[in-house]
């Protein structure tokens, strides 16, 4: 490299000229005036005939564009895409060394005119991508002043680039913060709304179940007197009834009991839904419970003329659960089986499956069966396959829906396998030991 001949038009000493530039650069708060000062200084103090300063801005970190130029430079130059590694200027950036471009080479991809020029990377090695200084010179020797200028300009552009980056980062960060704040506020408001709604729902729900509990008490009180007097009439307390009177009073009695059963079932569903059905947990053997169920349903079994059998797997362990509720579910399943089986048999099976630690109690009948499309519906409130008021089978239509709810309360479930004409199998699945609620 040559030391170069300095053209000092302002009659300054070389060191004064350099000092003046440094002061000017340090006074600049934006890259463009920096670049402008640099190209002007080159024009005044070196033999550079034309020059251009290319730099990346934080807004477009992947593109070098012309910040300032002097002499016959292409002002409309499109800029250099940094990922365009085949571009001759990008190659200069890549090797961090000044590169000489002889006159007439590579037009029009280069921003300077017809003359040969140097491309000098700006900035420290780590941030060498900040920019390039192009200086059109008479020969392939880089003057010391140009090298020095590139060094100063690079340092200043790096500083401005970084501070602009920082500003941008701060702006983004504060924008992010305010958005976060807005989202957090919105979220807190939503939470509050939801909390209030949940509270209102809970209150409405509690009010509803209290209302229903009151209603069923109010309904049962007069019904109790009706059933009591009806029973006394049937017992002949007021004298023997003739057969026709007896038949009529008998119907009052059976309809009254049906109504009472409905009211009781509705009250139970209300209690379960409101979480007010108490659990009475204890340890007990299943076989004795099944014997009790059969004993209680003995009149129904006898009337049905079906073959009712019980199959107990050997060595059943004891259960830890709510005995009364399990009994109620099995009574419901068995009385349904008896009701919907015109002929054949009903089989109750109890098994224990050690691997999951669960019991199954299934009630299998040879009855009318249930079509697949009705199989989910029958677990809903007030549903039988035939829900018409004149349906052939009695009952409240709440038995299975209560049983399924009770099974859930006991951490178990109720499943059904059936096909029309093939009978039905209802299975109660229960954990051997309930986790306490």
């Amino acid at each position: 490299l040559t030391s170069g001949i300095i053209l000092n038009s302002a009659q300054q000493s070389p060191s004064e000229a350099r000092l003046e530039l440094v002061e000017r650069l340090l006074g600049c708060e934006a890259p463009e005036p920096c670049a402008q000062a640099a190209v002007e200084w080159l024009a005044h103090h070196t033999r550079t005939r034309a020059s251009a300063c290319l730099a990346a801005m934080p807004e477009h970190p992947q593109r070098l564009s012309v910040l300032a130029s002097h002499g016959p430079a292409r002002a409309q130059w499109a800029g250099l895409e940094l990922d365009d590694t085949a571009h001759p200027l990008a190659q200069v950036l890549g090797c961090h060394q000044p590169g000489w471009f002889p006159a007439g080479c590579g037009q029009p991809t280069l921003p300077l005119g017809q003359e040969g020029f140097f491309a000098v990377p700006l900035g420290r090695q780590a941030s060498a991508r900040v920019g390039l200084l192009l200086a059109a010179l008479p020969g392939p020797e880089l003057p010391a002043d140009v090298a020095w200028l590139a060094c100063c300009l690079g340092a200043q552009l790096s500083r401005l680039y970084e501070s602009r980056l920082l500003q941008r980062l701060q702006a983004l960060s504060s924008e992010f913060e305010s958005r976060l704040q807005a989202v957090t506020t919105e979220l807190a408001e939503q939470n509050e709304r939801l909390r209030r709604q949940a509270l209102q729902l809970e209150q409405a729900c509690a009010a509803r179940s209290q209302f229903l509990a009151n209603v069923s008490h109010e309904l049962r009180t007069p019904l109790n007197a009706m059933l009591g007097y009806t029973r006394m009439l049937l017992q002949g307390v007021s004298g023997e009834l003739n057969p026709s009177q007896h038949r009529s009073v008998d119907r009052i009695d059976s309809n009254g009991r049906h109504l009472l059963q409905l009211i009781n079932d509705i009250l139970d569903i209300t209690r379960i839904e409101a979480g007010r059905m108490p659990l009475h947990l204890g340890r007990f053997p299943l076989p004795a419970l099944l014997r009790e169920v059969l004993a209680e349903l003995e009149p129904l079994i006898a009337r049905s003329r079906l073959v009712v059998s019980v199959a107990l797997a050997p060595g059943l362990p004891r259960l830890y659960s709510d005995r009364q509720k399990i009994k109620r579910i099995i009574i419901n399943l068995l009385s349904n089986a008896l009701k919907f089986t015109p002929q054949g048999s009903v089989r109750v099976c109890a098994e224990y499956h050690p691997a999951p630690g669960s019991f199954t109690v299934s009630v299998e009948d040879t009855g009318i069966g249930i079509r697949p499309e009705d199989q989910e519906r029958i677990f809903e409130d007030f549903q039988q396959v035939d829900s018409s008021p004149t349906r052939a089978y009695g009952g409240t239509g709440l038995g299975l829906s209560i049983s399924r709810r009770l099974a859930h309360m006991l951490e178990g479930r109720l499943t059904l396998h059936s096909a029309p004409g093939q009978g039905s199998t209802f299975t109660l699945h229960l954990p051997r030991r309930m986790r306490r609620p």
Partner: protein
Amino acid sequence: MTDTPAGDTQPLILVVDDYPDAREMYADYLELCGYRVAQAGNGAEALEQVHALRPDVILMDMSLPIMDGWEATRRLKADERTRAIPVVALTGHPPESQGQSAGCDAYVLKPCLPEELTEQVQRVLGQRRAAG
């Protein structure tokens, strides 16, 4: 129908219920079964009747106006003069703990047919005879 209790002084049953039709129904049935019957419409009346008549058994509905059945029973059981008289509670829900029981001797879940109630009365009287 149940057997008529023997003897000249048949047991006296106090029926406490605020719903007249139910109260009279139970009273009618108990009389039919041969018992003597007195009636009260609330807990305060019941206490007066107990002190005046010394019944052999009290049938007490638990939800009553003025003074409920739980409170009336608690007072009867706290009083030495009336402590020994059996109280059969008529209630929609069985008590869930001892603390709530107020010292009742038996519970009958409402709704309850007259013959079921009469069976409870007989059972309690039988226990009382056996005890002393």
